[in-house]
Each structure stands twice: as C-alpha cells, then as structure tokens.
C-alpha cells in the first residue's frame, strides 16, 4: 500500500526534522532512512527531498554545511537548529492530536479497517 501524494507532502517536513533530530545527515542518507523506517512503503521521488530541505533551511529550522565525504566527494550535510527542534515539538503534538482523534473513531468500528 502506497501513501497518497498529499499525505507524503504533508508529512515531509516533520519526517525530515525528526530524522535530523537523530543527528546530522545528508540527502541520500535521509531518503534511505525514510525507506528503511517505512519498509519501502513510503515512496518519495528522491529529488523532491531537496526543495523540502532548502525550504526548511530558509525558514531557519535547519542549517546546511559542506563536508568532504569518506569517498572524497563534497557533500552537503544538514543539522537541526534550535528553532527546528521547537517547530518539531509543535508539529509532533499536532500529529499526535490528529492521530488520537482518528484512533478513537476507528476503534469504535474496527470492521472499517
């Protein structure tokens, strides 16, 4: 089962922020992490991650910096900023609210699932 496009778009920012909350990372590794966490069921078009990262950076939530990778290649890493941590906490409570609301409704009628 694939996740719909709208939901992928809506969850992109909290997902990226949460992955960066685990520690600094770079584009390719973030995509791999999403793939691993969703067991390959949340399919992103890889390239679409980068506009998301750049938007988050422009909003001051994350910070990018360049570093030479183990392969000797220049790579752009991203790290969570303080404002990003705060935003993530806010987004997290919003998502939890949506989740618990839906859960209560769905648990009443388990046959729907």
């Amino acid at each position: 089962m694939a996740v719909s496009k709208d939901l992928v778009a809506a969850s992109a920012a909290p997902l990226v922020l949460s992955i960066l909350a685990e520690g600094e990372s770079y584009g390719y590794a973030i995509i791999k992490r999403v793939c691993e966490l969703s067991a390959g069921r949340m399919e992103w078009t890889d390239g679409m991650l980068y506009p998301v990262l750049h938007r988050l950076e422009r909003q001051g939530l994350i910070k990018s910096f360049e570093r030479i990778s183990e392969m000797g290649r220049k790579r752009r890493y991203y790290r969570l900023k303080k404002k990003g941590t705060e935003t993530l906490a806010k987004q997290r409570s919003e998502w939890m609210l949506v989740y618990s609301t839906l859960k209560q409704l769905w648990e009443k009628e388990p046959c729907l699932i």
Partner: protein
Amino acid sequence: MFDLNDQIIKWRSSLAESQTLERSDIDELEGHLREEIEHLTALKLSQEEAFYVALHRLGDTGSLTEEFGKINGSVLWSKRLFWAAVGLFSYIIATYTAKCASAGFVVLAWLAGLRGYALGVLDTIAQVVFFLAVIFLLYEIGRRKDRRGELFCKVAGNLWGKFVLFAGVLVIIAVKLATQFLIPATVARLSVRQWGEMAIFRAYTELVWMIGMPLILLTALIFLRPSEPAKTGTAP
C-alpha cells in the same frame, strides 16, 4: 559505448537550462545520483542500467525544475537584479574614472604645450584606456575572489562596508566636479579655433561610442548568455 560522465554532463545541462536550479543545487543532486548509481552497481546492475534507474528515482527534469522553481523563483530574480546593479555600478565607476583621468591628462598636455586636435586625440585615448582598464580590473576582482557575489554582499551588508561605499561614491562625485571646473578654466585660455578642433574630435568619438556601445552590449548578451559549463562539480 556508455559513458557515465558524459551522460551526467548532459543531464546537468538539461537541469541548468531552466535556470531555476542553482549550481550548488545541481551539485547536490549529482552527488545523490552518483551515490545511488554506486549502490545499484554494487547490486550487479550495469553502469548504464544503474544510471537510468537512479535517474528515474531522482525524478524527471520537468518536475525537479518545477519544485526548485517554487523555492528559488524570487531568489533568482533578486540575484539577477543584484548583478544588474553591480554591472551598472561598474559602468558608472569606469566612466567616471575614465573621464577624470582623461581630464587630468588633457590639462597636463595643455600645460606641456599640446593644442587642438592633439588634445582631442589624447582625451579619447585616455578615456578608452582607463574605461577598459577599470572594467578589466573589476572583472578580475569578481572572477578571482567573488564568484558568487559574496564579497559585494559582505561589503554591502557590513556597516563599515556601507560607509566605505558611500564615501567612495562621494569621492568620485567630488573628483568629477573638480575636473568639470578644471577643464573650463583651462580651455577658457584656449583660442576658439582650438577649442572647436577639440570639440569636433570629441563629437566624432562620441558618435563612434554611441554606435559601438549597443553593438558591444549586444555581442556580450549573445555570448555571455548563461549556460552550464561542460564540467561536472563532483566528477571523480
């Protein structure tokens, strides 16, 4: 025969054509593409197969440029305006420097005894040489130290930098005013005939300039049209 670097160069230029991606964006995407290709070739795919699979996963050029356009659009225009302003400012600095320098030369030459057409010729040569020298100097500074406008941004963003810029403009205006008064004071002592000879020469050179300048600009616009250089940023 499949040449990976060749294909990547082609792919880069197709991304660059839209102008919504910055060079660093394309570098980052290329890094991703290469990493995915390495991953896939390790799974026994041929380099060609890996390239096409990785390209498909990364997304087609159309949607990539569209997504990047959404976030880079306004930045792109402010950058273009910034560079247009840098160009205009350079032109003004070059023109003022050339005029001030040539005025100085004319006065010196007049004191040395030159008259008439000779003064006009000297005036023109000095203007052209100084104009080209200043443009070349600014171009060299820009090319060597300031590929992305960081130097200009830093100067314009810093309080002292702003002060220096402002003071610099004031100095240019002051020198220009001084020479403007110096020249008439000198030529007032020339005979009407000699002044006329100098003015005629000036009129001709201005005519050449007025025709030449648009042609030079047109040539520059055609040849400096932005395009992705045939070189990859992170090629091994």
